[in-house]
């Protein structure tokens, strides 16, 4: 699974992109966030406040209950501030 991080999530986690292999039971966005936070360190810090967190799966906005799989591209980011 390809993970992408933007804005301050990138700063806190310390990378813009990483390839991870969560176990098969990590099959929803919510489960993935739990799994990532459990890695501790920058991941735990970045995921401390999930209310302010945006998630996209394969470049589409996703909700906690939406499915994720090994071939997906999952992006985590704060609320958007363009324009």
């Amino acid at each position: 699974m390809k993970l992408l991080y933007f804005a301050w999530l990138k700063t806190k986690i310390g990378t813009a992109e990483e390839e991870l292999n969560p176990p098969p039971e990590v099959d929803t966005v919510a489960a993935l966030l739990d799994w990532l936070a459990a890695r501790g360190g920058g991941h735990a810090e970045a995921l401390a406040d999930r209310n302010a967190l945006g998630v996209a799966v394969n470049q589409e906005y996703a909700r906690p209950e939406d499915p994720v799989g090994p071939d997906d591209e999952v992006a985590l980011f704060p609320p958007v501030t363009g324009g």
Partner: protein
Amino acid sequence: MIRVQREDFDLGAELAALTAGNHKIGGLAVFVGLVRDVVGEQALGAMTLEHYPGMTEKMLERIEAEAKQRWPLEASLIVHRTGRLEPGERIVLVAAASRHRQAAFEACQFLIDWLKTKAPFWKLEETESGPRWVEARAGDDQAAERWKKRDPDAAE
């Protein structure tokens, strides 16, 4: 048409190209966003716009398609810059052209309001106290909210 680019854009040239050859257009509404030199109480040195390549273009195309569905537009354009920008520089251009002004005005406002809450861009400001990521404004959500279609079956 939508474009994401580092370079500046020439407003006159963009608008001339957008309306060229289409004489059905009677009104063209334009919004240009610029970098301010003050953020809150602090001076702003510059800002850097980061985005999610791929998803950004996809979202901008969808926002434009939605505007075309809602208003009778003859032409529309979104140009958004990325990278480091200093005060006074142009950040974004949205334009909507229609036969009459009301559709053009409304569509233009819709385009920028939806872009601000849906397109994956993030601003990093350079201030006197160091760099900080801009937080989303509640006012932007409210501005986008008024364009949400009412579900006719929803209870008021």
